[in-house]
């Protein structure tokens, strides 16, 4: 198991600007801030745990599955109706020859949300059990990579705008898929708020140190 931090045990890198900061005990009501960029480096753990992130990310994965398996909207013009899933739009753009746009929409609305929620669930589960599951650092890196590409909240706003546009032409019905898209968007936003990368960094570091000590003892 490889430690994520190249710094010594008394030091932690600022999560934002990567400046080394010496770890000290933080009392309730205080926090350790980066001397360079001012970001919070350490804050009292208090009652914070990894369970909220775990619960939200698992719920988000279920909602994402349902958002992708139910139609989002039904459009009706002069008695002719058409329902569309998230993947329908991607397929249509691909068939029209705009595969780069199709690939981007697929990444931002399906792949990255799934990778982000799954990796957050995996890392949160390992951290809350204090058990170094295999590939934990890779999962943590995936969650970092997938976060800016996880644009399902933007997709939910685009769905609302498209309903407004389509109502100018014909009738539109919200389907279950749209509700699940909104649910994924909210769960993702909440998961991003409660998934504390600083706490994960510290927990992974502690697990790596414990593993090293075990190795020395045996």
């Amino acid at each position, binding site marked *: 198991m490889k430690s994520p931090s190249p710094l010594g045990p008394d030091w932690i890198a600022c999560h*934002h*600007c*990567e*400046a080394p900061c010496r770890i000290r005990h933080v009392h309730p009501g205080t926090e350790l801030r980066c001397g*360079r*960029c*001012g970001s919070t480096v350490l804050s009292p753990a208090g009652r914070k745990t990894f369970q909220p992130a775990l619960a939200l990310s698992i719920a988000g994965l279920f909602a994402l599955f349902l958002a992708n398996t139910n139609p*989002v*909207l*039904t*459009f009706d*013009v*002069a008695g*002719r109706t*058409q*329902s*569309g*899933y*998230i993947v*329908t*739009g*991607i397929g*249509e*753009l691909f068939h*029209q020859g*705009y595969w*780069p*746009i199709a690939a*981007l*929409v697929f990444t*931002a*609305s399906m792949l990255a949300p799934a990778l982000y929620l799954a990796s957050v669930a995996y890392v949160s589960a390992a951290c809350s059990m204090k058990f170094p599951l295999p590939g934990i650092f890779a999962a943590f890196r995936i969650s970092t990579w997938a976060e*800016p*590409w996880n*644009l399902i909240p*933007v*997709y939910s*706003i*685009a*769905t*609302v*705008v*498209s309903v*407004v*546009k*389509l109502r*100018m*032409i*014909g009738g*539109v019905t919200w389907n279950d898929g749209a509700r699940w898209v909104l649910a994924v968007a909210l769960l993702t936003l909440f998961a991003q708020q409660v998934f504390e990368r600083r706490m994960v960094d510290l927990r992974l570091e502690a697990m790596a140190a414990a593993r090293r000590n075990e190795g020395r003892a045996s």
Partner: protein
Amino acid sequence: MTDSFRISTARALVTTAAVLYVPSNVIPVMTMTVAGKTDPLTVLGGVKELWDSNLPAIAGVVFLASFVVPFLKVASLGWILWLHGTDRHQGVRDKVHRIVHRIGSWSMIDIFLLSVLAAVGQLGALGSVTAEPGAIYFCSVMISCLLAAEIYKPRLIWESPGETDP
């Protein structure tokens, strides 16, 4: 990836985004055909259509997300990279980088809109939605800015003058 490679790549991406920003707003991003009437829509054309339909709030959201945000992203990343290697406004640059990172993704709203409309708007002669080349330019601007903000790490803002400038 070395720091000098990061900086030159970020500069190339922001220059690309700045160049492509013009065609992304001039060339239509989609064509809506309703009952035989074809209507090519640019980003601002879509905003005007919403405004004309007495939907100023929605028009405002789309205008901000699709026109203002990409412009601000290109301009602010250009400014950050322009001042790279100097110790001027390091704190402000760091804050601007944070904001760009946070709001940058909202400009994807137009591309998702195109995807949702294309999903349900294939009703043959009654109505159809097709993508247009402007959407490719728009996506390129969006991806270039997103990658530039990812590649140019905030720590590079704080480096001493001349440390990594290629």
